[in-house]
């Protein structure tokens, strides 16, 4: 399986990364080399083996369903590129 230039552009769009044609072309060669490496996994017999998502297994711990105080609006917004009245500003999304 080898990626094409249009695959790379489609993936880049899904990942919300802008790529020029030149960048996509360069990425194509590198990604195909990496996928050649990854292809080795396809020949491994994994029938009956459970996927391992966490080194120690187990389930995610849930905290008590109780309110906790994490209100720190000013500090949390200090790094916002654009803000007004305690809200994050983004370009208009609804006409």
């Amino acid at each position, binding site marked *: 399986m080898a990626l094409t230039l249009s695959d790379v552009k489609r993936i880049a769009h899904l*990942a919300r990364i802008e790529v020029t044609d030149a960048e996509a072309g360069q*990425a194509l060669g590198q990604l195909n080399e*990496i996928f050649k490496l990854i292809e080795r996994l396809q020949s491994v017999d994994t029938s009956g083996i459970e996927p391992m998502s966490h*080194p120690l297994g187990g389930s995610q711990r849930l905290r008590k369903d109780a309110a906790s105080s994490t209100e720190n609006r000013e500090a949390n917004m200090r*790094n916002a590129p654009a803000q007004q009245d305690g809200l994050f500003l983004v*370009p208009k999304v609804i006409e």
Partner: protein
Amino acid sequence: MFKKSVAELGRALIAREVSAVELAQLFLERIESHKDLNAFLDVRPEVTLAQARAADARIAKGDATPLTGVPVAHKDIFVTRDFHSTASSRILKGYMSPFDATVVERLGDAGMVALGKLNCDEFAMGSSNENSYYGNVLNPWDKSAVPGGSSGGSAAAVAARITPAATATDTGGSIREPAAFSGVTGIKPTYGRASRWGMIAFASSLDQAGIMTRSAEDAALIFNAMLGFDPKDSTSVERAQEDYTRSLDLDLKGLRIGVPKEFFGEGLQADVEKAVRQALAEYVKLGARLVDISLPNAALGIPVYYVIAPAECSSNLSRFDGVRYGHRAAHFNDLIDMMKKSRSEGFGPEPKRRILIGTYVLSHGYYDAYYIQAQKVRRIIADEFQRAFRECDLIAGPVTTSVAFGFGEKAADPVAMYLSDLYTIPGSLAGIPGMSIPCGFGAKNRPVGLQLMANYFDEARLLGAAHRYQQATDWHQRLPPLVQSDR
């Protein structure tokens, strides 16, 4: 004084032979005089000295821990309230966190004094520290060589004695590989031991914090303060607090050290093999027994890793969108365009590459074939470690196939760079603790590391075995030439 270990500095502070402020000043001067290594990204003497004064006050009150007043520097993957937190990326340039990472907080609570933030590969992605937006870190042993990565700044700073200890993180070898390349002691604990709260996420099922020091004894002392359950990290392991120094006097007699034959195959350079075999012989001299073991699928670790890590990274790095924090492009047409341009300008080539791989392997129609298959092979590799640990107590081998390589040697070829982590990735996938300790020198007089791995939660024995080796040898005491002339 700057050549002293963490343990020695702690004792000198309590005995009032030196003050925390004097130590902070000494190491701040060293940061300045070794600026060309580019190990530090943010230094704020006023912050460091305020922490040092607080440590001195604590010592005066008789309230000190063995770490109070001892300086430490933090990899720029840990967020900090008082220093910029950038993950060595343009996208987080100038970012000030509203909180400290748990690891930073715990070491601060013990009284350690923060010297600043350390350079690393962007988002901890890399094996040579050549992926930092803020420039290369130089290897103190040989400035034409890479320090290793991703924790390159941590390794170089400890090697050059600019800090007695540095935090680091390991996803596929990012503590052990730079520790080996730069000739320092580096250890990652069992996955789940160190809190990931405030550690800028790369691959959540693999990321684990650890420490770089001059010696295993120092690492054990710091682990006592650094590790432990954190309710703020959902993968943190709930276990009783441990004393990681308890086995430093480990009796090596009868200790079974497993030597995986797959770690001595094709690709391993003769100079590295020689130093590692000599270290194994030293263990035999000290009473340990070598056991031949096999990890037949260890080499599949690299393809497994380059599915799982990019998949998790593409998900984790989606939070950088130019909306709430981080870089926002100056010109754009609409919301989607703003995100695309901000991310495109903010991320360097390696994070972009991994985001693309991850997005692809998680996309519809490929998820089972790639991501689930990789998770299954991950279990095969982890199970092989468990079989091996039935025959041995620890596993030993090389950390890397070669000594540190030169700048640019692998930078143009991602696959060649990925293969640098052949021996470290399997342990990361299993989630077991692993470390690198200096064990000699190879080509061009560059350091060689011995890798030691233990089973889950067996850090105390791992540190003990390393400490005993360091009592019998002096590789970890050797100083890079540029430090030898320092007074």
